[in-house]
Each structure stands twice: as structure tokens, then as C-alpha cells.
């Protein structure tokens, strides 16, 4: 015992002795029994256990997963948020980071779910395994609502548990030897799933890209649409419009270019239209569109659009260049010359607002921060106020 075992603080006396839990077990009899010997190896840990067992399996780690840089973007943001909360427990954090919705689901929808749940407790209403492609009625409804007049039928639709899962299943379908192109910046799952499937080479720190992926730069300078004449042929092209994170919605003319590019090269486009419902102007909502697409506006979407406007106005008034936001619930704010994780940390520490650093979406996101409009109106207004304070 030659080193300090206790932290370097002055303990107040009350905290030591009056704790009953620290008194030894007292013997009532006059003959004192010897205490049980406590093990000499007293283990004191102040962190979750590292594996101190010597045993490992002889299974090699999947080298593709080892290529991944850090954790997936959004759990990483969550970790930083948690660390911030630890340092400043009374901070009233507002999260405009992950695109997680906050408004309750309208009752007409939850009633339908509740009814079905209750029906599962009846003999007539119980259903077990469903068709893996999804219930016929739902597939038909999707085809009729979103793809009417586009030549898409119910049998072309596969209902899933979300786009993220579909991206990975598509990657499993394509296999390890296809080449892919992605927008830069873009939703991280296209790249990460590609790495996991072994389609890429190692990460190159200097350019912040994985080898063997075509990164198609989308920036203010090119109107957030890549110069396809500079893009090499790949088997697969992932294209998200309206875009996460930049908010850019490709025009009819641009999508026509994209489709021609793919046809000429014999490539497959994976078109991510997750934010199509937010389109305000007449940008195409579906890659399958031809003139005369149906319109579908919802109250909930309208609510997030108002939020988006508040955020856009806030940053614009502060003198920032702001992109996106017209056609999707993300505001893409330019912080020229600044490291996006630094800006993220600055906004979190000084304003207690969570955003998402642009470089998390690809090297083309460096110098930008994504601010999401998903939140309660009061929180959006409060966040706007704090941002005005911070950057006035």
C-alpha cells in the first residue's frame, strides 16, 4: 500500500464513519469468533470489466467489419450527448440531431394497430406467419397511393421493417463483388453496409473515403447534383432524393440524366425516396414518375415543414448559408473552413443543442452541419433562440 487508494479530495467526516454499512459485523457474544478471511485479492474496478480471461476463440474477426471507422454515426452522437449530460446534468438538451420524429402518431393509425393487436387474442382474428413480402392489402395500397399511373403493381412491392433494413438486404442480394456509387455526402448506411459486405477496400484517412466506392460530390457549387460525366461506371448507384443530409431534391431534368446514365452503363439505381412526402414544389416524388404524379400532403408533414422554416430563418438571419429544407425536414448549414465535429461540439456545449456533423455523411459533408426539424414546436423555438444567442 504505497499509493493513494482514495481519490484526492478532502473527505468530510460525516461521510466516513456515520455510514452504518461500513461498520464491521459485531459479535454479541463475549467470545469473539474469528472473522471469515476475506480473499487477499480484492478487486477494485471503476469501469466495466475488460475481458481478463485468457480464453479466446480461434475464429478470425470479420476483416470487413474491422474496416469500419468508429461506430455507426447516430449511436456515436448519442454517446456524445450522454457524455455531455454527465458533465452538465442540468442542461436542457434539445436534440435536432438524429432524424427521429417527435409528434404523436394520429389516432386513426394507432387505432388500427390496437384493433389488430386485440384481434390477435381471438380465434378468428389471430394470424401467425405472414407472407414475407407483406400483406396483400398493404402492398396494393402502397401501389395505388404512391405509384398510381407509374406502372408499378402490388406484386412489385415488398413491405419491410424499414429502409435501413432494406438497404442491408439489398446489399446481401448484390453480394461482395459489386461496385457502388454514393452521393457525397449521403446517409451513412449505404457505405457502411457496403463495407460490411466486403465490397470496399480500406478506409483512406487522408481523403476520408473507402477505397473502391465512387463518391459523387454534391455541393452548393454543383447545385447538389453530381457531374455524371466525371463519375466512373459502377454496378449500383445509391441515390437519395430529397437528400439526407443536404435536403436537395433532384429536379425532373436531373433525374432524367441519372436514369440515362444508369441505362447507358447497365447499372442499377437504388433510389431512396424516404422523404418524398416533404416535397413542396413539383420535384419528382418517385423515380418512376412521369408527368402528373399524385399529390399527398399530410398534417404531420406540414407541422415539420413549419419547424423547418423556423430553423432556416434563424440561420439565414445569422448570416449563414443554408441549403435543403425546402423539400425535406433537414437544414444543411454551411460553416466554411470549420471542422464539422468541432461545430457539433460547440453547439452542444454552448447551446445544449444536438445536431449532426456533416462529415458523418461522407467527406463531402465536411464544413456543414445538419439540423433536423423533428421536434416539438417549443423546442424548435427554444433551440432557435439559443442558436441566435450563440452566433449573434
Amino acid at each position, binding site marked *: 500500500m*504505497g499509493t493513494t487508494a482514495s*481519490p*484526492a479530495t478532502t473527505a468530510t467526516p460525516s461521510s466516513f464513519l456515520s455510514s*452504518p454499512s461500513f461498520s*464491521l459485523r459485531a459479535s454479541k457474544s463475549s467470545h*469473539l469468533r474469528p472473522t471469515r478471511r476475506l480473499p487477499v485479492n480484492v478487486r477494485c474496478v471503476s469501469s466495466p470489466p475488460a475481458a481478463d480471461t485468457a480464453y479466446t476463440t480461434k475464429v478470425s474477426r470479420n476483416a470487413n467489419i474491422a474496416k469500419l471507422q468508429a461506430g455507426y454515426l447516430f*449511436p456515436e452522437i448519442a454517446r456524445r450527448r450522454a457524455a455531455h449530460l454527465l458533465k452538465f446534468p442540468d442542461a436542457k438538451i434539445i436534440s435536432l440531431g438524429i432524424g427521429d420524429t417527435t409528434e404523436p402518431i394520429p389516432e386513426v393509425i394507432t387505432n388500427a394497430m390496437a384493433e389488430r393487436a386485440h384481434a390477435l387474442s381471438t380465434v378468428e382474428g389471430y394470424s401467425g406467419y405472414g407472407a414475407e413480402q407483406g400483406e396483400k392489402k398493404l402492398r396494393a395500397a402502397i401501389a395505388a397511393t404512391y405509384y398510381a399511373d407509374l406502372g408499378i403493381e402490388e406484386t412489385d412491392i415488398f413491405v419491410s421493417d424499414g429502409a435501413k433494413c432494406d438497404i442491408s438486404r439489398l446489399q*446481401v442480394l448484390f453480394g461482395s463483388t459489386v461496385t457502388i456509387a454514393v452521393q457525397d455526402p449521403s446517409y451513412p448506411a449505404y457505405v457502411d453496409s457496403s463495407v460490411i459486405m466486403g465490397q470496399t477496400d480500406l478506409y483512406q484517412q487522408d481523403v476520408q473515403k473507402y477505397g473502391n466506392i465512387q463518391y459523387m460530390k454534391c455541393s452548393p457549387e454543383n447545385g447538389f447534383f453530381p457531374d455524371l460525366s466525371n463519375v466512373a461506371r459502377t454496378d449500383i448507384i445509391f441515390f437519395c432524393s430529397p437528400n439526407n443530409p443536404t435536403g436537395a431534391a433532384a429536379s425532373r431534368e436531373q433525374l432524367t440524366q441519372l436514369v440515362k446514365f444508369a441505362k447507358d452503363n447497365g447499372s442499377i439505381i437504388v433510389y431512396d425516396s424516404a422523404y418524398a412526402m416533404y416535397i413542396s414544389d413539383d420535384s419528382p416524388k418517385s423515380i418512376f414518375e412521369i408527368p402528373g404524379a399524385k399529390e399527398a400532403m399530410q398534417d404531420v408533414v406540414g407541422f415539420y415543414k413549419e419547424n423547418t422554416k423556423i430553423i432556416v430563418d434563424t440561420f439565414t438571419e445569422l448570416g449563414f448559408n443554408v441549403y435543403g429544407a425546402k423539400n425535406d425536414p433537414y437544414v444543411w448549414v454551411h460553416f466554411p473552413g470549420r471542422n464539422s465535429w468541432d461545430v457539433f461540439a460547440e453547439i452542444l456545449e454552448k447551446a445544449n443543442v444536438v445536431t449532426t456533423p456533416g462529415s458523418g455523411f461522407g467527406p463531402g459533408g465536411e464544413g456543414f452541419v445538419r439540423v433536423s426539424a423533428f421536434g416539438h414546436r417549443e423546442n424548435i423555438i427554444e433551440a432557435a433562440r439559443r442558436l441566435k444567442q450563440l452566433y449573434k
Partner: protein
Amino acid sequence: MCQRCGCVEEDGFHAVVVCPRAAALWDAMKEVWDIPEKEQLMHTGPEWLFDLLVTLDDDARARVLMIIWRNWHNRNEIIHGKKEAPSEASRLFLQSYMNSLLLIDANDGKDILKGKSVISKTMEKKGRGSCRRTHEIAQWPKPPDGWLAISVDGSFDPVQKEAGTAAIIRDGRGDFVLASCTFFNRCRDALEAETLAFREGIGIALAYTAQPLVIQTDCANLAKSLKEGNMDKSHIGHLYSLALSTPEGYQGYGPEQGQKSLRKAIAEKIYLNMGITDTEVFISDGAQCDIARLQMLFGRDVTIAVQDPTFPGYVDTGVIMGQTGAADESGRYAGIEYMRCAPENAFFPDLATVPRTDVIFFCSPNNPTGHAASRDQLRQLVDFARGNGSIVVFDSAYSSYVSGDQLPRSIYEIPGAREVAIEISSFSKFAGFTGVRLGWAVVPDELLYADGTSVARDFDRVVCTSFNGASSVAQVGGLACLETEEGREAVRRVVGKYKENTRVLVDTFTALGKEVYGGDDSPYVWVRFPGQRSWDVFGEILEKTHVITVPGSGFGPGGEGFIRVSAFNSREMVVEACARLTSFLA
């Protein structure tokens, strides 16, 4: 080297007893307190302190501890570059402190001072053996059986606005389990220090164990507020929320891992006493999906072994991931190790003849054969995997169909399994969630790749990239199955119904003179139709009786010559089917 006297090398005994500065305090206290003679303060070995304390009565013990504590404090002052107070000052301090305790006690011991109430007191020296005691020194309160006790404490420096916290966990016998201490360089007040200590205690406990916990704090305010669920918006209320929440952001994985309450319920109810913690449970949308994600995790370059016959998902996902070559005429894929399970070997492979593979998929109770491996068989499997450095993926989707208490329901009942096995399971077959979609995977912390990296960490990465978590509504349903006796009893009844159906099937085929396997611990019966191709038998049964079964060869070449009949239907339908089968096959 002791920094106080500079004479000898320091150890604990020297620091608080022998060092001249320490000895001086003993002398000073001897004049006012009834404490042991210097000769009794002996260094008997590493446990000198316990040896000393055990010879003392309650009051002397308290006094000795206070002196030792004060000597240690003074020693620390020197170590950290502060000036040490003279012995006289320390003596006065100790006396005054004792007196404060007595004054508090004079008010019947229930008053709160600094948020603490006094439960014991000792007296100044009045002559040997004449200590007046009106209260017992409190016994350390033992936790109930099967529980652990965490004692937590925080200390606060009002000048530096810093805090130190500590937590110690002991079991029902008082044996040490583990302890932790943390330093905070930013703390508002003593109550916050106590709350941080509380959270620390919960945090380390939940990282280590799924056992229920009793948390002991000396801060009455804290205990009171937590019991009352005082969640006001003051900064303390926020701290209480922190205290009651676990630090999941850096101990658990992402939200894709599933709701904590469900993970805890699975760890505590299904893996009771197997050392599985909630952080090792990953909620999914079903075992089939987990199999695919596990294969993505393992990648293309692993070799796999499967039972033959077995659930086709393991093989098919392996093929899709590129782990195999082409299939031959019998349907066997090159590169997969097929472990024959047949009546002749009691449905357990002869592992001595099985070459090493990286991964072994093992389903028990088995789909389709219905065989539930014995404890001894699973021990063999775990030893085999250990010897080869392989990973077992143990599919326990049908564990709720196991009858009685003899057969294992989880691979983690086998010693050593934590270091070699992943277990997957599902709510499909015991809760009827086939359409609702809910399951889980257990990936223990000790499961490591050859290079020492954590399998769970990579699995979490795959889950976070390719999945967004199981449906919140489905998870709530899963929790209802587990967390109340009413829920558990309800699913037991449903399983019981299917097991009764299985009995009917077993009886029917047995009466027809067929070799029938499975059925006891499974909702499947595995019926031999020797000399016939199973697809032909399937076709015949379908045509002649309009009953759908499953041909055994669909589960692997080892399934040829068998038919799987499942008990998943209403009782009437099963009885009707059996009547038709009896007419046809008799």
C-alpha cells in the same frame, strides 16, 4: 518511502500505526479514550487490521477506526503537498466529532444532521469497561436471499467543489463482490455527491449482475426522495432521474439493442442464475433475422457446421454469404460440415469424427427432429467448441417445450459456455408472435475473436447498421409475457395446448406402428417412412388426406426418409388430421 518520517518504506501499517507522526496521535488519544495499548497494535500480516478489530468490542472498534482514519487523512495531506496539523489539533477534532454524535443521539437518534440520522454512539473513556450504551451499533443489514447489497457513499469538498464517490457490493454472506470509486472534479453540493455515488453503485452492479439489489446509502434525504419518486425539475430532481437510470450511453449499446426493460426481463427471467446481464441481450425481430445478421457478422470466410437434418436457415444464409461451394445431387453444399443426427446416434453427432469449423449451429430442442440434447451432450458440445476455438450458435427457440427439469433449456447452463456460445431465441413459438416478430440474441462479454476483440461489439455494429430495432409495440408485448406471473402463466398455457396436440400426434403414429421421434420436448414429431423418398410421402399424404406435413429432406440430406408433423393447429384440427391419417396409413 514514507513521506512523513522519511525513514522507511511505507506500507499501510506504517502509515497509520508505526510512523512517529501516526504514533503521536495514538498517544494523544490514549489520554482521553479507552483504546488498546500500543503493544496490541501488531502487524500480523496483510490482514493485520482485521486481526486487530476482531479482538475489540464495538465501541473500541469504532474509536480505533477513527484514529486510523485520521492518521490516513493526515498522511494524505502530506502526500498532496499540504501541511499536516499537529497531533493536538487532530485530537481535538476527533473528540469534538464524537461529541457531535452524542448530542445528536441525545435527541433520540432520529434527527437528521446533514441528511443523516445517528444510529449508534459511543462514549468517552470513563474507566475500563464502563461504557454506557443505549443503542446497538447497527448490524450491517443483510440483503434477502439471492440479492446483493450495494453500499454507496459520496463525499464533497465545498472549497474545491469536487466530490469522491464509492460503491461496494456484497452478497448475502457479507462477502465482498466488487467495489468502485470515482472522482468528480465538478460537484455542486453534498447531496449531489451522494446521488452520484448512488448512480455509480447501480451502474457497476447492473454491469455485473442481473440479481436484484438492495442499495444502502447513509443519506436519508436521498433515500427518502427516491422512495417517494421525487422527480421535480430542480437540479436534484434531474439527478434523481440520473440516479435511477443507468448510464446506458456508455455501458449499453445503441437503442437498436432494444428496450432495457425487456432485455432485463429476459436476462432475469429466462437466464436466471446464468450470469447473463441485460447488456448482453440484443432484441430482434426474430431468430431467422438474427441468423442472417450473425452470418453478416461472421462474413464470407468462416467455415460452418450444422446438424443434419436442421432448420434450413443456417445453410441458406451461409450460401448467400458466400461461405460455401455448389451443392451436389444430394443437396449438400461443398464447404459445410454436416453433422449427422439420427436415431442410430440418439440424434447427437459423434463429435470425434467432426472436423473443426469456425462456427457450429446447434438447435435444441431440434427443429425438425424434436430431440432435446441432454446436459451431458451439451457439455460435450461446449468442450468440443472450446477445444477447437469455435463459436457455437445455439438456437433455443423451442426451449419452452422442454418437459420437466432435467434437460437444459439454455446453453449457458453449461459451464464454459459463455466463452464459446451465442444463443438465439424467439417469442414466435411460445407467445404466438410468428406474425408479431420478436426475438433475441445473447452475445456474452467473454466471447472473443482470435485477436481478442469483442464479438458483441461487432454484432452491435452490424445491428446498428442493418436494423433499426424491433417494433416498440412488439417489445411491449414481449415484456407482458415475462414480467408478471400472469403473463408467464398465460404463455405456459398456450405452450401446454400445443404439447397436448403433440401427444395426440405421437399416439396416432405410434398406434400405426411407425417409428416416432421427438414430441416430448418439442412441438414436432419426426416420423420415419423407411424406403420412401420424403417428398413422395409428403405428396401422397397431401393428396389422400389433405393434410400438409413437411418432407424431411427439406431439412438436409439426413432428413431423407422422414416426415415432420407439427402440432401447431387447433385441437380439433389435429384430431381430425390424425383421424384421416389413421384411415390412410392403417
